[in-house]
C-alpha cells in the first residue's frame, strides 16, 4: 500500500487550490516558494479609473506603499492598498483603518480638525474606538494640545511650497503620540501628515501624490 502514501504525499506537496473553499493550512503549505499573484477586481477597477493616489509609510514598521481612493461618502474617503487593507480619512485625518493591524474602527476628531484647519492653538479632545485583540470595542479619549509649528519648505512633485505646519500632541492615561500636519498655504490643502494610528501600528506618514 506504500504507493498510496506516495500519491498522498505527492498531492500534498504540489496541490494548489485543492479545496473548494478557503483553506488556510493548505494555502500556507502549498504556497511555500511561490509568489502569489494578486488580482483583486476592486483594485484593478481603481487602477483603470486612475483613482487618486496616497503614499503611506509606517514609521515603526519600516514599510511603505500606496493607497488608492475607493469611495468618498459623507465627508470621509476610504483608501485601499493592493492587499485590500484600507484607511479612512476625514479631511485628511485618520478616522479608521481596516486590515493594517491597528484595530481603529472609528473616531470623533471634529475638535482636532477645527483647530488644525483654522490654525488656532488650543486644547482639544479626540476619541477613537478600537477593536481589541479579544474582539471587543474599546473607546478611548485623548487630550491634545494643538499648536502652530511654523513654516517649512517642502518639495512636491511639481513645485515647492512653504508649508504651514500644525502640531498636535496627544495623551491618555497610558498612551502619548504626536501628529504633525503640513498645509499648502496657497490652496489650504493638507498635503502631508504624520499621524498616529493606534498602539499596535504606531505612526504613519501620509502624502497625497495626485488628485
Amino acid at each position, binding site marked *: 500500500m506504500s504507493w498510496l*502514501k506516495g*500519491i498522498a504525499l505527492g498531492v500534498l506537496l504540489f496541490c494548489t487550490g485543492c479545496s473548494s473553499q478557503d483553506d488556510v493550512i493548505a494555502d500556507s503549505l502549498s504556497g511555500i516558494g511561490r509568489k502569489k499573484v494578486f488580482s483583486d477586481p476592486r483594485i484593478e477597477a481603481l487602477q483603470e479609473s486612475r483613482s487618486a493616489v496616497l503614499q503611506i509609510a*509606517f514609521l515603526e*514598521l519600516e514599510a511603505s506603499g500606496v493607497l488608492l481612493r475607493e469611495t468618498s461618502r459623507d465627508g470621509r474617503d476610504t483608501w485601499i492598498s493592493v492587499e485590500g487593507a484600507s484607511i479612512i480619512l476625514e479631511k485628511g485625518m485618520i478616522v479608521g483603518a481596516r486590515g493594517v493591524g491597528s484595530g481603529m474602527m472609528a473616531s470623533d476628531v471634529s475638535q482636532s480638525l477645527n483647530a488644525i484647519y483654522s490654525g488656532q492653538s488650543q486644547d482639544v479632545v479626540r476619541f477613537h474606538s478600537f477593536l481589541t485583540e479579544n474582539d471587543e470595542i474599546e473607546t478611548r479619549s485623548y487630550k491634545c494640545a494643538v499648536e502652530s509649528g511654523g513654516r517649512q519648505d517642502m518639495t512636491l512633485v511639481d513645485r515647492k511650497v512653504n508649508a504651514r505646519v500644525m502640531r498636535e500632541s496627544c495623551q491618555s492615561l497610558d498612551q502619548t503620540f504626536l501628529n504633525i500636519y503640513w498645509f499648502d498655504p496657497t490652496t489650504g490643502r493638507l498635503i502631508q501628515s504624520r499621524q498616529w494610528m493606534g498602539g499596535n501600528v504606531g505612526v504613519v506618514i501620509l502624502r497625497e501624490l495626485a488628485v
Partner: protein
Amino acid sequence: MRRFGRFLVGAWLFLAAPMAQAQNLSTYGTPGLIDMPTADVLPDGHFAATSSVFRDTVRNTFVFQMLPRVYGSFRYSYLRDLDGQNGSIYDRSFDIHFLLRKETARGPAIGLGLRDIGGTGIYGSEYVVLTKTFADRWRVTGGMGWGRLAGRNSFSNPLGAIDGRFDTRPNLDFGTGGTLSTSQWFRGPAALFGGVEYKYSEKLSFLAEYSSDVYEVEGEANGFDADFPVNIGVNYKFENGVNLNGYYMYGSTVGFQVSYTHDPRSSVAPGGYDPAAPALKPAEQVALASWNLPEETSDSTGAADVLRVRLDQEGLRLIGYQAGGGRAAIEIENNRYPSAAQSVGRAARAMANVLHPSLDHFAITLSENGVPITKIELARSDLYELENDLEGAWRTLSRATISDDSSGIPSETVPGAFPHFSYRFGPYARLSFFDPDEPLRYELGAEFEASYIPVAGLTFSGKVRQPILNTLDDTVRESNSILPHVRSDWPLYAKESNFQVNTLTGEYLWRPGDDLFARVTAGYLEEMFGGVSAELLWSPNESRLALGGEINYARQRNFDMLFGFQDYDILTGHASLYYDMPGDYFAQIDAGRYLAGDWGATFSLDREFNNGFKIGAFFTLTDVSFEDFGEGSFDKGIKLEIPLSLFNGKSTQTKLTQVIRPILRDGGARLAVANRLYGYTRDERAGRLVGQWGRFYR
C-alpha cells in the same frame, strides 16, 4: 516583507502584553520561587507552559488561571530511575491553588494550594503561603507545608489541635489512581519554608529559598542528595514573553527552566489582516449602477446575480434571495469568518452597495448547509449613518433585530444554490499522549473530505485519510479492560488500518419549529462506530439555557477502518443541558447511556474568550466502578480550542483542537458523531453573535 514585519511587531506586542505582570514560575511550572510556591497567581485567564530539568527530573507543566483567584495545573514529569524495578517513570499530576487574600499595602497575599491532588502521590503536598512585597523590588515568601513539603525539620501538625486525625498522614491507597487523595490532605507533620525574590530590573531577578523538600524518594532511588536546604536561582524575562531560569539546587545540582506565559485574549493583531470590506458607496451611485437602471426592475435577478458574486468575494455563499416592497432578504452561509457578526456586517454592506436604494429594510439569515439558524434585520439608512460612527457597532446592534429563523428563504430563489459540492484536500495530524513507552505518539498524513448537498439540509459527506508518518501503530500496549472494548482497542485501529475511511455519512438537518433543531445521521459515524444517530435541540435565541436529546444505535467497526463491522452493538444516547454562563464560562451536562452500556453523566466547564479561544475540562462518572474502569478510575480530560486566525491574522474558521486525556479507556465513552446541534448552531445564535458584534464593521 511588509506583512512579515507587521506580523513580527504584532507578535511582539501580543507576547509582551502580559509580561508586565508576569509572575516567576517555579520548577513545578506554577507561580513560585525555585521549588517552593508563593501566594502569587497569574493574571486572570492567562496560561503558562513550563519545562524544567534538573538531576534525573523533567517537569512539563501547563497552568491555567481559571478564575481570578484560582489556578489549576497539569504536569507530566519524567523521573529517571525512580522505580527500582521498572526504571524510569512518567508521572501525571494535577495541582490547584487558591488566592485567599490579595496583597495590600499593609498585609501579605495569602495562598493555599494542593500539589498532585489526584495522581500517584509522588508530588503529593499541601501548603499555606504568605507573600509580601517590600520596597518594590523585594518579594518575601514564607509558608507551611505538609506531605512532601514537610520533609525537612518537620514538627507535629498544628491542625492536630483541632482534630487528632490531622496528626498522622495515612499511606496513600493508590488503587487505580485518578481520584482525589483527600485522605491525606493537610495531614501528618508540617514544616516551614520560605524565600525571597529580588527584582534587579524589569527583566532580571534573583531568587533564593529555603526548601522543606528533601527529595526522599529520589534520594533512595537514585541517590539525589538534597541535604543542603538552600536553592538559589536567576530569572531572565525576554521581551517576547519567554522566561529562562537557572538554578543551583540543594548544593548538589544545577537546573534549567524555560517557560512561556500567554493571554488568550490576545491575537497577532486586533481585527486581523483581512482585506477591508468595500466601504459603503453613496446611495445615488448605487442607483446608477447598470443592474439598477430602469430597464431592470428592482428585484430583478440582475441585482441578485451581482450580489451573489460580491458575497462570494467576501467568502459568503448566497442561498436565498427575496426583494420587494422596500425590503430585501438574503440567506447566506459563512465559510470564512470566525465571527458571524463580521459576516453579517459584510453581507449588509454588500447589499447596500448593490441593491436598489428603494430597498431600505435588510434581513440577513445565517444558515449552515441550507438550515436557517438566525435572522438579523436592520435598516439600510442605519448603515449609512453609523458606518463611521464612533460607537457604530453598538448603535447598529441596538437598532437591529435578532430573531430565530426556522423557515429561511426557499433556495429556488437563487439558481444553482443547490446541489452544492465542496471538498478539501490537506494534511492532518493526530496525537496521542502519555503512553509510558513513548509519551508522544503521532500520525501525520493526507486527508480528503468532501460533501455533497443535493437539497438544503441533506448532506452526504465523507472523510478519508492516508497516514504517511506514523508512530501510533508502534504501541505494544494491549487493552486489559474488563468492559466492552469500545475505545481501549484504539491501538488495534492504528495497527490494522492503512488507508482509513474515517466517516461516511448521510445527514439530514431541519427545523421542526421555532427554536428547535433536528438531525438524523446514518452511516460510518466515526472511526470506531457506525450506525444511526438522531438528535433534537431546543435553543431559544434569547435564552442562556438550551436542552437537547440524542439517541443512537451504534455498531463497532472493524479495526481496518474500512467498511466491515464487528459483533458489538449498543443503543446509546444522552439528554444534554447547555448553559452559557455570564462571563466567559460555559457549562454542559450530558447524562445517559455510554458506548460500553454504562449509565452516567459527563460534566464540562469551558472558559471561552470572546475571540474564540477556549480552554475546558470535563469528567464523566458512570455506574462502572473505579476498579472496573481501571487505570485512572474514571474518564476525564482537558480540551483546547484555538482559532488559527488569532495566530495568522487571516480569517478562517479553522481551529486547532486538542483533547488531552490522561488515559483513554472504555467507561464513560461517548459516540463521536459529527455536527451535534448545539455546537453546530452556537456561533450563529444571539449570544455569540452579540458578543462579537464589535467585528460588524470589520
